[in-house]
């Protein structure tokens, strides 16, 4: 008998699971179109590697993640790629995202598959690669890529591998039915994961409200060391942190991952997907989805191709369109409402509830918090929900963070019991969102400041270097002059003093002649203008241009900072930048003009100043 621990708080909402367990898993059939979002899990989106109009085979890779964290997407059946465009995807915001749409050709023709008969003969990394190439990401929660999860950091040895079959959310029975009907695949998948991780202990945690699943798994694990832990039904026992506490008595450190305490949780559906990928060579192209709620006539679980529109599934379950008041994706505690039934099933979709108005009625209007503390009694994370609520409402985010807002798992137990029907979880989401936005903003501002300071430092350094070079030049010139003088003195000392006066007068004469010529040149149109006159002009222009450029750069920097901080002088700075831009252009034009003239020859007219 496995020793169990209790977690604090928790609630016992009506289960409504029998609605969808009366029928065996059915095949959802082939929809007219499959919509495959390129991003189906946390991490980076995949990139399409097929063209519109291309014919693909069932199981063929159609999108992959080149760099970054993610897994590929496969064609769930054979057919033609219809489009690669934005479609509504399952997301609380109801947003649209990039999807590949596939028109099935009805032939369901497989691509080449390469099953592995004996994975134990392979390297572990090879098996992880198979899991990655099969496009497997966690099928319960956020959909973390399974191959990455199965390779924890070297210093984090996983000693306990937990298969999460608690399925504590009301209504959902996808894992329950999977365990009942595919117990052997579940255990096979668990064995593969256990082979990769080599844990000391393998546990399958199941809530005691699933006797059939427990019996099936007991049978499938007979003779193995895998423990079947029957845990008391209490929401949210299936929360990763809660299940770990129940089965090990340990707590996942705040901000850490289970591997920090030597534990890893995997989902039932993920185990089946891993077994299929390794033993059959089948990528993740379908999953079990619960279609339930009082607005469907034949609720139950469906083996569903990824990309199947919810609409098709609801049709299969005999939906009564007029009775649906709320479409919930996921469970009633943590799921979110859909705006349209056009969204497709993705790798993390476990349940759709088509609820009638009577089934999930709108909550009564929010009343003031009376600090009754029912929420704190229900909180499985031992937070103070009412204090968090006060702080979130008063936008005192610092205080909310201090009371461990970010440890909230948004299980909804507090809102469920609140006698004032305050949508507490919504307040926490708001506070978390605001804090994240502030942090992002702060990060941006910090970066802008760093950039600005780095630039200032660079300019200063350049200025100093320039100064240094100028000084060096001046020194060199002074030395040269001194040398000349010394030579002259030397020469004089050697007895050329007699000629000195004559030489001097000759110099004066030369200078006079030059001056005369210059005077003539300024009058006559084509004089032989000395190039020495041109040279300083170019230099001046260059200097002007450099000054204008540096000013422009300064202004641009200031503008970027102002934009980053959303200062109110952005407009002014923009004007200044534009002005400086013009100035630089003018200076450049002037300079290039001067250079052309210089290149054309000294016979050209004088440059204008």
């Amino acid at each position: 008998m496995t020793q169990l621990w209790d977690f604090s708080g928790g609630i016992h909402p009506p289960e409504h699971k029998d609605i969808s367990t009366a029928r065996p898993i059915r095949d959802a059939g082939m929809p007219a179109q499959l919509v495959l979002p390129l991003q189906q899990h946390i991490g980076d989106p995949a990139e399409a590697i097929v063209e519109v109009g291309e014919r693909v085979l069932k199981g063929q890779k159609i999108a992959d993640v080149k760099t970054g964290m993610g897994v590929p997407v496969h064609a769930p059946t054979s057919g033609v790629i219809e489009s690669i465009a934005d479609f509504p995807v399952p997301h609380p915001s109801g947003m649209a995202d990039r999807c590949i749409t596939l028109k099935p050709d009805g032939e369901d023709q497989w691509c080449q598959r390469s099953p592995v008969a004996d994975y134990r003969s392979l390297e572990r990394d090879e098996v992880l690669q198979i899991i990655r190439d099969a496009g497997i990401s966690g099928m319960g929660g956020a959909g973390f890529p399974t191959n990455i999860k199965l390779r924890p950091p070297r210093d984090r040895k996983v000693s306990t591998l937990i298969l999460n079959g608690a399925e504590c959310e009301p209504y959902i029975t996808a894992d329950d039915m999977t365990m009942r009907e595919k117990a052997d695949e579940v255990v096979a998948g668990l064995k593969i994961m256990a082979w990769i991780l080599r844990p000391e202990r393998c546990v399958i945690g199941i809530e005691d409200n699933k006797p059939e699943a427990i019996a099936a798994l007991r049978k499938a694990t007979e003779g193995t060391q895998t423990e079947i832990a029957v845990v008391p039904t209490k929401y949210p026992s299936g929360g990763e942190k809660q299940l770990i506490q129940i089965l090990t008595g340990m707590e996942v450190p705040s901000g850490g991952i289970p591997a920090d305490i030597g534990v890893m949780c995997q989902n039932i559906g993920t185990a089946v997907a891993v077994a299929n990928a390794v033993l059959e060579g089948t990528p993740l192209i379908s999953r079990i989805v619960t279609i339930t709620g009082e607005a469907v006539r034949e609720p139950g679980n469906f083996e569903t191709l990824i990309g199947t529109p919810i609409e098709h599934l609801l049709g299969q379950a005999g939906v009564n369109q007029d009775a649906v008041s709320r479409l919930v994706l996921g469970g009633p505690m943590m799921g979110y409402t859909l705006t349209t039934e056009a969204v497709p099933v993705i790798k993390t979709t476990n349940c759709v509830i088509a609820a009638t108005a009577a089934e999930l009625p709108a909550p009564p209007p929010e009343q003031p918090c009376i600090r009754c503390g029912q929420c704190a009694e229900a909180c499985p994370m031992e937070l103070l929900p009412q204090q968090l609520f006060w702080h979130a409402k008063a936008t005192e985010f610092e205080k909310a963070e201090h009371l461990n807002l970010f440890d909230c798992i948004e299980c909804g137990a507090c809102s469920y019991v609140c006698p004032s029907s305050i949508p507490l979880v919504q307040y926490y989401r708001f506070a978390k969102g605001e804090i994240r936005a502030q942090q992002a903003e702060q990060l941006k501002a910090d970066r802008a400041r760093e950039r600005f300071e780095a630039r200032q430092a660079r300019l200063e350094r350049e200025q100093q270097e320039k100064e240094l070079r100028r000084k060096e030049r001046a020194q060199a010139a002074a030395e040269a002059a001194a040398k000349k003088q010394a030579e002259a003195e030397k020469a004089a000392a050697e007895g050329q003093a007699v000629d000195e006066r004559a030489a001097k007068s000759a110099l004066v004469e030369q200078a006079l002649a030059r001056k005369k010529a210059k005077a003539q040149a300024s009058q006559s149109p084509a004089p032989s203008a000395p190039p020495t006159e041109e040279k300083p002009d170019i230099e001046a222009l260059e200097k002007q241009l450099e000054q204008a450029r540096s000013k422009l750069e300064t202004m641009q920097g200031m503008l970027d900072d102002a934009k980053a901080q959303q200062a109110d002088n952005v407009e002014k700075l923009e004007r200044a930048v534009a002005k400086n831009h013009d100035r630089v252009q003018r200076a450049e034009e002037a300079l290039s003009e001067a250079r052309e003239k210089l290149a054309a020859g000294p016979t050209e007219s004088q440059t204008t100043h």
Partner: protein
Amino acid sequence: MAFVQQSSPHAHKARPTSRVMLWVLIAALPGLLAQTLFFGWGNLINVVFCIALAIASEAALLKLRKKPVAFFIKDNTAAVTGLLLGLSLPQFAPWWVSAVAVISAIVVAKQLYGGLGSNPFNPAMVGYALVLVSFPVAMTTNWAEPAMLWDGAPGFGETLATIASGHQTAVDGWTMATPLDEYKHKITTHTATEVLNHPTFGEGIARGWEWVNAAFLAGGLLLIALRIITWHIPAGFLGGMIVMSLAFGNNADLYAPLSLHLLAGGTMLGAFFIATDPVSAATSHQGKLIYGAGIGILIYLIRTWGNYPDAVAFSVLLMNFAVPFIDHYTPPRTYGHHKARRGVPGGQG
């Protein structure tokens, strides 16, 4: 068709505040019944009058504050405030004493602070403390003599007329000092045995009072069983009182014995119905224990060394002051954390 858009969770358990308050009203009925049986019609009349006036004042203030009147009245919280005052005030307290208590409770202590959920002080106890210091005579001389309803207590009409007229002299024959009052003042000059000879104590511990307290204890246990209150505040309250009594009060010739502290006066009403007002109490379990213990200790201190024979109202109010402080230093340890994050952000704790 347009689907309902709602943030999770989508399921809710229906036990609204109004139902919670209704249960408080129901759980107080055994106590009220015992009061009526042992002290006559006074409490019942007070309860009805106070509840009616509380609801009327709440409605008036909500109207003034431009709040939805029916929505808030339906939460039953004003009724509970009225109930608590009706149960606490002396049986023959003139109507205007009750009226001042109720109006100051609802208008000042509750609505002027922002209404339900925003009041830092227990409204009923603000009202009670106000009339206790303002009308000391009316508040100490109007306690009914413990007489069985079926055994010579003044009738309903007489009681009602006395309360309504407010004539103090009319009630002299039916009133008697409360056991706590009697003990406190006599023990300085008499031995315990002599003091306990007074008819207010009767055969048991405190005639009538012991049954009233037992009935409130029963009602309180019902509230705990229904998970409307947790055991922490009553346990802290009674625990604090017991510890103080054991530490200082074992000489009955000097101080009232523990049995009297527990079963006379407003102890059980205070521990299960008054101190447990969630709005003005501490939040965490540890905080609730400290908060309750503080009240129990203060009651003992004031009863023993203070000027008042009973002290539930003052003790509750004093601990209401301490609630933000207690809350700051008693947050629970959150899952995954080594220890609780005490104090304020950035502060030491």
